[in-house]
């Protein structure tokens, strides 16, 4: 009885160690997953920081952060969108168009900017529409307007400007 108890005890002890070992392995894998998530969280922080700079009017600081992000992740939608708006404000319309197009290509319909949840893909189209307008390319500006209003429009410059005003309020 005692032996069987001892055997049983040994069996239980083995089973316990086995469970403990399995539990330890699971614990290590879980930790690895957590670490990967931390990297994503850090970029978000940077983007939010850039968004704050933009709201404070510190455009050049935001420009630096967005550029730094793009070094690691060229297709980052937020950074491309942010740069497109910054270059629009600086009257560097070709740069604005370049980054705007990158952002539009990467963004899906449900996209919202990490640095400002109010910013959607619609805003990127608007940036492109304005940038094309200021370069005198009214056709492409109209193309972008169509993406925003989801209907076929072909506006003359004065009407196009008014539409840009309306859509950008």
């Amino acid at each position, binding site marked *: 009885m005692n032996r069987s108890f001892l055997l049983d005890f040994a069996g239980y002890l083995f089973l316990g160690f086995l469970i403990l070992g399995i539990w330890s392995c699971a614990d290590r894998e879980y930790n690895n997953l957590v670490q990967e998530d931390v990297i994503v969280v850090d970029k978000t922080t940077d983007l939010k920081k850039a968004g704050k700079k933009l709201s404070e*009017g510190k455009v050049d600081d935001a420009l630096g952060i967005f550029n730094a992000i793009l070094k690691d992740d060229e297709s980052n939608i937020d950074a491309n969108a942010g740069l497109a708006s910054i270059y629009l*404000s600086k009257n560097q319309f070709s740069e604005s168009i370049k980054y705007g197009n990158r952002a539009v290509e990467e963004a899906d319909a449900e996209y919202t900017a990490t640095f400002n949840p109010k910013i959607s893909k619609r805003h990127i189209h*608007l*940036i492109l529409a304005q940038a094309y307008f*200021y*370069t005198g390319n009214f056709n492409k500006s109209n193309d972008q307007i169509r993406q925003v209003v989801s209907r076929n429009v072909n506006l003359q*410059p*004065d009407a196009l400007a*008014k539409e840009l005003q309306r859509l950008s309020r």
Partner: protein
Amino acid sequence: MRKQTAYAILIILVNVVAHSASIQLRSIDSLKNEITIQQGDLIDLEVFVDVGEIPSAGVETYLTYEPGKLRLVNNETPFQQGKFYTGTIVLNKAVSQTEVGFAVISNAAPYPKGRGAVAKIQFIGRIAGETKVTFNRDPQTHWRQGRYTLFTQFKDGKPRLRSFKDLTDANIEIKNTLVKIDRYELQRFVSENPGKNIPLDKFVVASGTEGRPKLNWVLNAEDGKGRPRKVELNAANQLIVGNLLPRSKGEVIKVDLRVSLKVGDSLAIDTATVWLDNKGIPVLIRFPEVRFRAGSEEILLLDNFVKDRDHKNAELRWAIEGMPAALVVGGVSVNRLDRTKGTIDNPPRLTFRSLNPIASEQNFKMYVTAMDPDENFDRGELKVTVEPLPFVKLDLTLPNTISLIKNEEHHIDLSRYLDVEPREVFDEIAWEALPSEHIEIIIKNRILTLRPQRDWVGTAEKIKIVAKFEGKKVDEASMTVSIFDLPEEATKTFPVILVRNPIIRTEFKIVSVLDNVAALTVGLTFPESPDLKPKTLMMGKIAQSRNVWVVNYELEKLPVGGVKIVASVIGRDNLNQNITPSAGTFTLK
């Protein structure tokens, strides 16, 4: 005893006259019997005989002189023996107040024959006049007195007394001691030989001296102001001129000469004055009056105003005394000499400038000095007149009419529109604006600010701006200002559109679409935000577009609760006519 024997022999032979024998009294210096001396001068006379070919054993001679005119140098032994008779002197003394005697006898062969000096005697001239020293030769008087001149001649082996056939006395003229400076020749030498030492002795006439007299000079020199100058003679009695010459034009050095000649007890003196000037001094020609306007400059080429005999113009050093502080002088040559080249690197010139503006004509006086390497210099007066600035014009080139939007400030940088000469005085100009009824005019730091009265609109408000310099009005300008009301939405003539940046919400662009426009300006006002200042911006035309105008603006931050923006666009059409303004009102949140 021997002397007495000789006398006895002479007395025995007294009446015998030697054929062709002669005796004379002559000057040792000139060997002449006609002698001129100065008062006090020493006369050396010798008794010279010619006894012919027959040997002579001795001579006895007596001389008579005038003690009032001649003084015997040695009263005890008046004579010194000559070389002709080498025998014994048996007589050598003054035999009376007016006579001296000398006798010598040769006792042994060989006895002399021919010619030779028997003795030498010295007198001093005492009083000017003529006098004689004569041999005693009178057979009556002198023979009887035993003071008769004779000699011995051998005959038949025995000496016989003989009288001289020819006796030549000394005729002496005693002149007053005299030195005289030839003033004319002396000054001529000075003039013709500038800078050369003056051999003073050459210009002195000393009369009646036997040989070259030793002249003593005493010199005194002084400059034109009576200050003594050092004057020196060299060993040859030459006046050393070099350091004595005056250094500046017009100045002369006066040298007083005193020459003296002492002959015995007699002293002769003469004086003269020599005037030394310096021909090597650079001579400044009268400078013209330099006249120029304040703020401009005037150049004086100095070479045109100097002449230098030494042709050392290139080495002249220039200096200015009494330079007024109000003037600035330039020019590389002032006190600047390139000694490595030996010449001034540029033609010497003075450049005058007046830095400070002046209200009335100002006159300055200074002195310019030119100095050559020998430190000769000339100094000339230079007058400089600075004329006040005539302000050429004060021309505000703004349009006669300027249009502003209601409640909008307008700034004009006066320096861009003002033509004033010289520009340097711009800061000295004080500005005043005559008060305007509806427009506040502020001028500060060259900026003219037109601030329309709140909510006032109207036309033909004339404003006047006055420029003053040193309290006096210089010029004035006026312009007409029109203030336009903000057009209502309904009366808008062309669209004024505000397009916001979709992400950077503080940034926006004002867009207008209008044909045939030359320039558009937008005025931004923030009627509900007193902290935000109105802004005027020039709009630009979009590339590839003929009628779309745009300008961007960015607020520093978006005020809480948003901001109301009134964008008023004014401009000129292609015919340079003002277009009817348009405006838009926007609220940014």
